[in-house]
């Protein structure tokens, strides 16, 4: 048929720029990264084949394992905190209120701001001299907290900041999820005398499961990408407590010029992310809320 022919030609023409771009800027880099995994390369001299040495080094590199643990620690604080606060504010916003649009817009503001700007701002908010947060705490009679210089507090501090930055997005997700729940379901529950808590626990929460999955997966991806926050605020310290995998990779690549090892780190991280997201999907798909 004539249509089919022009159809197929157009399809090839329309997709070819994308395919070419993909070959050069995606498939080739992925391939080269696999090549680098078994090489030693300082960017300047020629790459040298080293077999599995980069992987062996990775296994015994406690700095990498520390960075990975740090990231998991970050997620362990960030995800629950995010879900609880975002859910609470979304439930509040779901009520017919005056100024709903204003509140939503306000909560959403940090989402559109660049992570770099937020980080630079929060570094000052956390400051022990003239920092806003410590000032507010001092009004409540609490001693200044060394947010970014105490190895036990620095990572939670970064997690709090990240939560503040992304909260608005997840509020919008939850809000959309809640508003999509049909009203008759709630009315039926009311007839049976369910309290608001029961309503929330047995209707809202189970029906929000897909949204929950989305939020968890997106925060996980964001968490594994943590870079600019520790880069600007702490440089990975104190005591390596905020060293993220990406920052460690950046350091290996561009401070020490261990390109092969950095590629190995990137490869390992990509693998870990895919496994994590897969597990989360499995777990949240099968878990029963009711």
């Amino acid at each position, binding site marked *: 048929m004539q249509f089919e022919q022009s*159809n197929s030609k157009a399809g090839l023409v329309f*997709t070819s720029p994308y395919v070419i771009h*993909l070959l050069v800027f995606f498939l080739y880099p992925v391939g080269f990264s696999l090549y680098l995994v078994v090489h030693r390369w300082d960017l300047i001299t020629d790459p040298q084949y080293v077999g599995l040495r980069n992987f062996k080094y990775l296994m015994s590199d406690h700095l990498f394992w520390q960075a990975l643990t740090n990231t998991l620690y970050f997620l362990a604080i960030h995800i629950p905190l995010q879900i609880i606060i975002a859910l609470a504010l979304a439930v509040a916003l779901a009520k017919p209120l005056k100024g709903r649009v204003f509140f939503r817009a306000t909560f959403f503001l940090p989402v*559109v701001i660049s992570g770099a700007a937020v980080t630079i701002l929060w570094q000052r908010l956390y400051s022990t001299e003239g920092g806003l947060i410590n000032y507010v705490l001092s009004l409540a009679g609490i001693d200044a907290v060394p947010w970014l210089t105490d190895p036990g507090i620095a990572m939670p501090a970064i997690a709090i900041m990240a939560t*503040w930055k992304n909260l608005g997005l997840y509020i919008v997700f939850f809000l959309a999820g809640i508003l999509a729940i049909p009203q008759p379901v709630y009315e039926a529950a009311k007839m049976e005398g369910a309290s608001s808590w029961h309503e929330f626990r047995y209707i809202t929460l189970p029906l929000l499961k897909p949204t929950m999955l989305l939020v968890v997966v997106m925060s996980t991806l964001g968490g594994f*990408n943590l870079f600019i926050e520790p880069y600007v605020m702490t440089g990975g310290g104190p005591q390596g407590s905020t060293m993220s995998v990406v920052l460690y990779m950046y350091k290996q690549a561009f401070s020490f010029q261990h390109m092969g090892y950095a590629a190995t780190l990137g490869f390992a991280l990509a693998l870990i992310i895919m496994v994590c997201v897969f597990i989360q999907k499995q777990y949240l798909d099968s878990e029963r809320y009711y």
Partner: protein
Amino acid sequence: MSMRRLLVYVILIAGAVSFIYPFLWMGSISLRPISEFQDLGLFSENFTLANYQAVFDRIPIGRALINSCFIAGTVTCSVIFFSSLVGYSLAKLQFKGQGAIMAIVMISMMIPGQLTLIPLYQLIVYFGWADSYLGLIVPSLMSGLGILIFRQTFMTIPYELMEAARMEGASEFQILRKIFWPLAKPAIVTIGILTFMGSWNEVLWPMIVVHEKAMMTLPQMVVLFTKGGESGGQFGIEMAANMMLVLPIIISYCFFQKYFVEALASSGIKG
């Protein structure tokens, strides 16, 4: 009832304050002399533009602003254009390798960027694109997310419209341009905002590719300014530089708040 309502309002207002006050404070600090940097209120009788003057004197931040606009603008237009082409092909056309392309779009979105970071840098070096717009723009000319959004939108558009146009002898490109684009305006806005913001806010890639000041993007320059020695560790000056990074986005957000929220919310379909 009213007690609970009050509580809800208190929580919401507390939330709103905690989201807005830091920005206002930053703006206020950037307008005040150094001696007041420990002041936590918003107002002062000594408001001055000296900090902004200092930023302009020390770094070519105007140039960085133009760079960022140019880069983000080009990337956004390209992503809209090419993604709609591919999205249209995947949604409405049949051709060999269609399934393979769809699969590869999905795969390219699942592979984390860290894996390709270092080879990509090597590639840019190989092309001689370091310290140039090309190095900053070309790798992000296409977007898998854009393709998916366009594909989804185009699938909802009925075939009848296409058939009618084809009868009149319109080419596929004319159909896309004259029928699909106008109908997909929300998708275009969404992809436009997502791509523009993503490009505007990117720091890691410019930091790797660009070392020449005249080529730096705004966020990169502000980060290096505050973290490197040039701000002299002075609070007000750093906040002034940061304000210049934040203001363009805040202003456009004030006008197009609804679109921003919708665009970012729809980025969730990626999951």
